[in-house]
């Protein structure tokens, strides 16, 4: 019931917003067409501006993954994660999640396929995927669009939220699904 309502809201939100904005602007005698084109121009330049930042980040992540350094990292971390009762299967997902959205989604899809969607690992992977974000990607994209290169404490705040989300997922899944 609740879920149906939310997905209904998600489906209608954008068409309704489009309708309301256009109508109101027209009524208020804004030159809607001209204003839209002006804004779209800015959109183009903003998207282009992010390219060098995204290239830098994607190259580093891509090399880190392809070289096998990612797997090594997982092995080094495993004694710590074992201590907290985190299943070894989901550790690559936890590490991949802040770095690459596509990569993490790939791991989640694979875990769900291998262990089954209704297994403990499947449910935990689903929860992890939904409750953490591609922090590095978001920071690179957002800061890159305004040419900011010193992120100050944004990385620490974002990553601590991700780590908390990871631990909270493990705890709540252990309580609910085990």
């Amino acid at each position, binding site marked *: 019931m609740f*879920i149906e309502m*939310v997905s209904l809201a*998600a489906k209608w*939100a954008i068409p309704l*917003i*489009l309708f*309301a*904005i*256009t109508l*109101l602007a027209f009524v208020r005698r*804004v030159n809607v067409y001209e*204003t*839209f084109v002006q804004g*779209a121009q*800015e959109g*183009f330049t*903003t*998207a282009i501006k992010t*390219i060098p930042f*995204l*290239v830098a980040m*994607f*190259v*580093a992540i*891509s*090399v*880190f*993954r*392809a*070289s096998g350094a990612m797997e*090594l990292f997982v092995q080094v971390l495993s004694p710590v994660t074992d201590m907290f009762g985190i299943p070894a299967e989901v550790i690559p997902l936890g590490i991949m999640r802040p770095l690459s959205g596509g990569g993490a*989604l790939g791991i989640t899809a694979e875990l*769900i396929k291998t262990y089954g*969607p*209704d297994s403990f690992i*499947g*449910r935990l992977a689903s929860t992890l*995927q939904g*409750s953490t*974000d591609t922090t*590095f990607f978001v*920071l690179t994209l957002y*800061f890159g669009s*305004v*040419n*900011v290169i010193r992120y*100050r*404490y*944004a990385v*620490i705040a*974002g990553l*601590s*939220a991700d780590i*908390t*989300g990871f*631990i*909270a*997922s493990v705890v*709540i899944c252990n309580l*609910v699904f085990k």
Partner: protein
Amino acid sequence: MVNVIWVGMLLIGIIVAAINGNIDAVTTAALKGAQTAVDFALGLIAIMAFWLGIMKVAEEAGLVRLLSRIVKPVTAFLFPSVPRDHPAMGAIIMNLSANILGLGNAATPMGLIAMKELQKLNRSDPRTASDAMCTFLALNTSCITIIPATVIGIRIKAGSANPTEIVGTTIFATACGMTVGVIVDRVMRRIYGYRKWR
């Protein structure tokens, strides 16, 4: 911080590849990464042009200002340095709402508009993140999604008996993450504030 992470990932990657004996993977991966980045940015042009066009119309019609006035009690607490009816507030609110509804395509352009507006308010060095930017990104990356649509899709495809049973656990875990994100942001802002005085 990013500098160290970036250099670390790249150098460790190259060293590990050399030890593992698959050094040619480095070159391929680097170029493939660059290609992915450019492809992404090119795809972004369409979404950005469309949403920034619409947003400009909304701004001219006075809608962004109106929205920021409605939600000012919450935002005044989180973003003390942003004037209450500044367009940045409207964009921040729209970005977070889109995130909550899981509308990724709409969330990104709104977020980039918010960053642009926050940059206009950035009183220090324009290449350094302002307090408000850090808070915004902490909220953005830890934001609750009510419907994790992608995951539910994967679960349906994999033949789950109850694809949406993970919604409750997901909301709980994000809520924890978001709380910690906001607290860490607050604490770090203090620490960095003191550093500036020295």
